[in-house]
């Protein structure tokens, strides 16, 4: 018999489970398992009222273990850990059993089999719970300093934001000057501010903050350490500087798509990319001069280098940027004729107003089919763009133009060295990948490494700043507490059994295991802050000297044994 006092709660999930699993039968089957004191069913175990019922049971019946058989542990582990905590029970004395995804939803054709499987799984959960022990979170002190890589608009704004919440910041820039792409731009949408002036202002703000140390001509060459305490090596002017930081924000920016020679006439005089055209618009006033002649007619071709087989993503900023450029051109010469040849136009949000204004100021929009791009050719008089316009019933039109602007998008920047150092995750589009675009937009799967700005995907300057500040909030949330609580379900070494063979050291994907001197020999030691609880080390140990807390060998064995109860031998 077990000394434990375990409560088991089996959930109907409002029919999601009970339609295919006989919940009453499950409760009946497990209520007399060793250690079980309370066994109940509930319509919705996660509801407030049932949570309170569980708390009342834990306190009233002095329960020391909790099993909830409902949905996937991905959904409600934290809900029921919190229930245990509120009732005064250690949250690691609780086990989640998945009888929805693994039983009712998968075996809709076999109610009896689904019920049998649920009973086995709940028994295994009870078996595990009989062997649980209280675990306390691993508390680590964090280093109240942040490293920002990339001194463009996102990185600069992030550095200022971090300094303003009282954190020391190291800002590392590969080029000679801060400022990045925006530092070379004139007027920006949607606010109409000058890019160069904005960067000058941010640089001044950085100068005024003693918390920020700027390294230019510098690159990150190495990173080690564990959550909240990283050691970074920055290479600057032939010297290696060692920095200790708590969080790292990567804001390394983008590259502009460079058309191939001949692509939509690129290479012919007067065929420019959007950044080249923007540069001409930003310098000087009056009609723009190209090849010694004032530009009277401009044709924009959209989606160049975006939304094709090689780069299937939409570069987002370029529609609005091209429309904005056409407004700047119209401002310099009201008589300039402008034609916009697009596949689809997305001047999202308030940028729609810019689109309306451009129409009213004489820009004409023509739509071509995805598989029928315009043709750009040189003539004696200048350039001819031929396009089949879907908005005029597929009429083939030739537009004489002095300048053809290829509206080029953003492409991922080659940063292989940095990717190697930080093990940055790269998405299918080639940009750095966040964990979730909406719910965790600046975090990466690499602990302590955040991403911001256009290294993550195409963004406007305003969006880059917003994501830089989001990274500040995320970094500050970790660092301002001064301590971080980490999951205690990590591997532990039984030092008596360890022979120091170092098999585990080789296996650990996080480099969290090392050999330390002990009684004249060497044994393995696990850095609890570096361990992610993956369990890779436990099975390779020839002496069974490693256990994963919460999933010890004894617990797993007990679970297997109970799964085999009643199985044909």
């Amino acid at each position, binding site marked *: 018999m077990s000394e434990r006092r375990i409560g088991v709660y089996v959930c109907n999930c409002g029919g999601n489970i009970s339609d295919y699993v006989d919940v009453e039968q499950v409760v009946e089957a497990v209520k007399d398992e060793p250690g079980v004191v309370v066994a109940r069913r509930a319509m919705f175990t996660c509801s407030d009222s049932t949570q309170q019922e569980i708390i009342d049971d834990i306190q009233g019946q002095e329960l020391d273990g909790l099993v909830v058989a409902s949905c996937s542990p991905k959904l409600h582990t934290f809900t029921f850990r919190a229930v245990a905590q509120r009732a005064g029970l250690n949250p690691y004395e609780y086990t989640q059993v998945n009888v929805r995804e693994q039983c009712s939803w998968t075996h809709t054709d076999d109610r009896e089999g689904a019920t049998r499987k649920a009973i086995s799984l709940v028994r295994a959960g009870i078996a595990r719970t009989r062997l649980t022990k209280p675990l306390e979170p691993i508390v680590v002190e964090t280093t109240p300093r942040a490293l920002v890589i990339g001194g463009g608009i996102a990185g600069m704004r992030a550095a200022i934001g971090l300094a303003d919440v009282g954190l020391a910041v190291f800002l590392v820039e590969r080029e000679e000057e801060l400022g990045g792409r925006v530092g070379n731009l004139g007027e920006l949408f949607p606010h109409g501010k000058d890019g160069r002036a904005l960067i000058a202002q941010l640089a001044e703000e950085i100068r005024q903050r003693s918390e920020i140390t700027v390294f230019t001509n510098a690159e990150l060459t190495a990173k080690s350490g564990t959550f909240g305490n990283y050691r970074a090596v920055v290479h600057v002017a032939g010297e290696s500087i060692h920095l200790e930081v708590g969080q790292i924000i990567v804001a390394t920016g983008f590259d502009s798509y460079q058309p191939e020679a001949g692509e939509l006439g690129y290479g012919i005089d007067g065929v420019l990319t959007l950044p080249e055209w923007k540069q001409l618009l930003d310098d000087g006033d009056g009609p723009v001069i190209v090849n010694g002649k004032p530009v009277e007619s401009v044709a924009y071709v959209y989606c160049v280098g975006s939304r094709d087989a090689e780069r299937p993503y939409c570069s987002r900023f370029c529609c609005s940027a091209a429309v904005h450029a056409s407004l700047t051109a119209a401002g310099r010469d009201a008589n300039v004729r402008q034609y916009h040849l697009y596949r689809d136009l997305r001047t999202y949000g308030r940028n729609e107003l810019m689109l309306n204004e451009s129409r009213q100021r*004489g820009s004409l929009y023509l739509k071509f089919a995805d598989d029928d791009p315009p043709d750009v050719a040189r003539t004696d008089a200048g350039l001819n763009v031929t396009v089949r316009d879907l908005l005029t019933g597929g009429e083939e039109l030739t537009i004489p133009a002095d300048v053809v602007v290829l509206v080029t998008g953003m492409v991922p920047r080659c940063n292989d060295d940095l990717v190697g150092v930080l093990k940055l995750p790269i998405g299918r589009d080639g940009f750095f990948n966040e964990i979730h675009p909406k719910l965790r937009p600046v975090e990466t799967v690499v602990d302590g490494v955040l991403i911001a700005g256009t290294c993550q995907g195409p963004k406007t300057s305003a969006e880059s700043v917003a994501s830089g500040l989001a990274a500040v909030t995320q970094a500050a949330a970790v660092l301002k507490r001064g301590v971080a609580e980490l999951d205690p379900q990590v591997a532990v070494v039984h030092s008596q059994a360890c022979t120091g063979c170092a098999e585990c050291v080789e296996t650990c994907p996080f480099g969290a295991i090392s050999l330390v001197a002990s009684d004249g020999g060497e044994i393995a030691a696990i850095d609890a802050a570096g361990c992610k609880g993956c369990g890779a080390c436990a099975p390779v140990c020839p002496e069974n000297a490693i256990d994963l807390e919460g999933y010890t060998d004894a617990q797993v064995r007990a679970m297997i044994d109970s799964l085999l109860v009643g199985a044909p031998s």
Partner: protein
Amino acid sequence: MSTVVHRDLADELRLIGSYDAEACMNCGVCTAVCPLEIALLPRRLFRYVELGLADRVRDESETVFSCLLCRACEESCPAEVHITENVRVLRHWLLEGSH
């Protein structure tokens, strides 16, 4: 056959009267509400003008004159184009060019 685009026609119309089709965003509300179900009018017609396809406009002069000027389209136009006034200007231009 490819037609060369020019903007002189729209400029010419602006000399005749107040012509403001450039704000048209090709949404098609005008076509949808037209009681005569004139498919051409007004958005396709206005594009001919903006693109300088004078011959196309002349080919469609019957249709231009069949418009009732009822203003149903104008009332519904989200870009606030003065459609009926534009049609009047176009009729003026077509008549001028006929003699």
